[in-house]
């Protein structure tokens, strides 16, 4: 079959006659050139159109971060502690004090605007002492803290139990009472 191959030896490429004859056979190909080029172009266009992964994930990351912040703030809002109620005990004024000597009752906004040092419980009439007084942090806002109510004392307060503006800091009225 292959007597024509003999004698043989390696050529400059290192192939013998047998190898050259084998290599002369052309492999059959069913690969479609145009289809490959079309698919390659299609894939290139897709890869060019698609942004980098960091850019692709930028907006989802921002949206996720904002969602986490919103959920966290919602949870904090739902679990916010109830407003603290502070009770101020006011010493009853002496019965012998003539009512005519009492000054004009101060209106609530005036009380709210006064400082704690200038507050004089004797200036409040008996009927006003039964009304809860609410101090607003800001005008027109729902009170957050403090909420102060005036409650009549069941018994006369001692000097040590005097007017307490703050729980932790007993207010010393001094000579004002």
């Amino acid at each position: 079959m292959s007597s024509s191959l003999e004698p043989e030896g390696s050529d400059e490429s290192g192939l013998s006659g047998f190898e050259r004859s084998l290599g002369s056979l052309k492999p059959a190909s069913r690969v479609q050139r145009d289809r490959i080029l079309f698919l390659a172009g299609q894939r290139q266009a897709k890869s060019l159109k698609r942004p980098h992964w960091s850019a692709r994930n930028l907006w989802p990351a921002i949206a996720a971060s904002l969602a986490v912040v919103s959920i966290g703030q919602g949870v904090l809002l739902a679990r916010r502690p109830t407003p603290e109620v502070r009770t101020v005990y006011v010493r009853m004024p002496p019965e012998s004090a003539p009512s005519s000597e009492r000054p004009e009752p101060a209106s609530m906004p005036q009380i709210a605007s006064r400082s704690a040092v200038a507050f004089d419980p004797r200036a409040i009439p008996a009927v006003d002492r039964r009304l809860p007084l609410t101090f607003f942090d800001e005008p027109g806002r729902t009170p957050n803290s403090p909420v102060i109510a005036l409650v009549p004392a069941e018994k006369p307060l001692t000097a040590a139990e005097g007017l307490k503006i703050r729980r932790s800091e007993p207010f010393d009225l001094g000579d004002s009472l």
Partner: protein
Amino acid sequence: MIDPELLGRLIDRHAPALELYARQWCGSAEDVVQEAFVRLAVLETTPENPVAWLFRVVRNGAVNAGIASRRRKRHEEAAAANGPAWFQPDAGSEFDPDIVQVTLASLPIEQREVIVAHLWGGLSFQEIAELVHTSRSSVHRRYQAGIVTLRELMGVSCPARSNPKDPTNPA
């Protein structure tokens, strides 16, 4: 991105050899080769040696495709062996393409892939060694052993100068 003209030249020049190379492992060789060229087209930077890169991708794809097809259907391997012809019919050739195909298919895969990559793919022994992750001398031994076996199976006597230990050599 690779130049389309270069891609077209690579397809014209190497697609048949790559398909023959892939056919050593699987029946869907044209799909493997097509995917390799498409992957080459979308690479950010063209490989230094595109041909060697293509052979490596085709080899990996063909091996995987062969494993997958054997898992899917056991008889597909036999169907692939009896599938399309590996070589074009050529009246001027000294060998019958069908005989070459059957003989080549009877070789171990280690020898077959080296012979196909060297004879039809045009890869050097060094490139094949890098492709199959072995030494150049090992690749050369496989190639020589495969050629000797092909000679024996095809009834081609071996010249005394190239292989003096060949038992078919009358000298």
